[in-house]
């Protein structure tokens, strides 16, 4: 089987991501399964692009590439919301630490003004 240029690029990208993920997240087994499943699906779809077209037709979308595009938008929107929630949580824990610190080291400044 001869791969087209875009297949080579996408395939290389998927391999690169799987190596990176493997090195970073060796410990989280559940996450690893999900990621392996995603990458496996990715590789299959890159090698057999007609598959996406067949699924797309079943769902009433003209082209496989369009279907992937629509799903990606949903997926990334979901990721952004997850990241936003995580940033908020982080911000709140930082705020808590800084607040506790500032109260613990509060200074009573002296002055000449009469109380």
């Amino acid at each position, binding site marked *: 089987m001869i791969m087209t240029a875009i297949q080579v690029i996408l395939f290389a990208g998927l391999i690169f991501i799987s190596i990176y993920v493997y090195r970073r997240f060796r410990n989280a087994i559940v996450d690893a399964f999900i990621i392996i499943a995603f990458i496996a699906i990715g590789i299959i779809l890159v090698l057999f692009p007609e598959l996406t077209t067949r699924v797309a037709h079943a769902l009433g979308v003209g082209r496989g590439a369009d279907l992937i595009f629509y799903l990606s938008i949903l997926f990334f929107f979901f990721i952004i919301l997850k990241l*936003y*929630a995580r940033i*908020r949580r982080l*911000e*709140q824990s*930082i*705020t808590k630490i*800084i*607040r506790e*610190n*500032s*109260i613990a*080291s*509060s*200074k*009573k*400044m*002296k*002055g*000449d*003004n*009469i*109380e």
Partner: protein
Amino acid sequence: MRNSDVYIIIPVFNEAQTIRSVIESLLPMGYKIVVVDDGSTDGTINSLDGFRLFYLRHEINLGQGAALQTGITYALMMNALVLVTFDGDGQHSAGDVDNLIKPLLLNEADVVLGSRFLPSAFTNISFFKKEAIRVARLMNFLFTGVWLSDAHNGLRAFNSKAAAALDLKENGMAHASEILFTIHQSRLRIREIPASIYYTKYSKGKGQSVLNSIKVFFDIVLNRIFE
């Protein structure tokens, strides 16, 4: 109740230019003063030399909402009976504080908010800002159910019960709506009194731009989604 049971909380971020005169105007009344330095880098602390006050410092800049909550938490720890929030840029007038806390002392309200649009309040607000605040009032009403004559006015007074109900999670400017939301949820009695706002070139530069209110709007929406 004595004036020393009243804690004035002043959040400051790089206000070295104005903070001295703000505190000088407040001190003669005998209120306790809590300055929350929200990570200033302009030597704001040096401008506080010679004043009797409580000084808290955030190691990094978190935002006005976070600074207010720190001051409120601290004042409650010090057994404050009345808590007043006051801007550090000189746009509020110290003379309004007495009127502000009166409804609390008479136990007619739990929260008193200053309004620049009530009769007898002076303000030299710009046309665009006035229109922006009109929109902000409507937004506040839609999101919090509290209809007011002003929005984003930093002059407020709380009794200790109302202050204890506050747990501001909005570090930025959206805290103003969060306060209203808490008032509504905790069924606190609210009152507005006229309070003058003097915009100077300096306070305009420090204050909220009209564009920024769009960002605040999104903060409020996202807050509603995630809380």
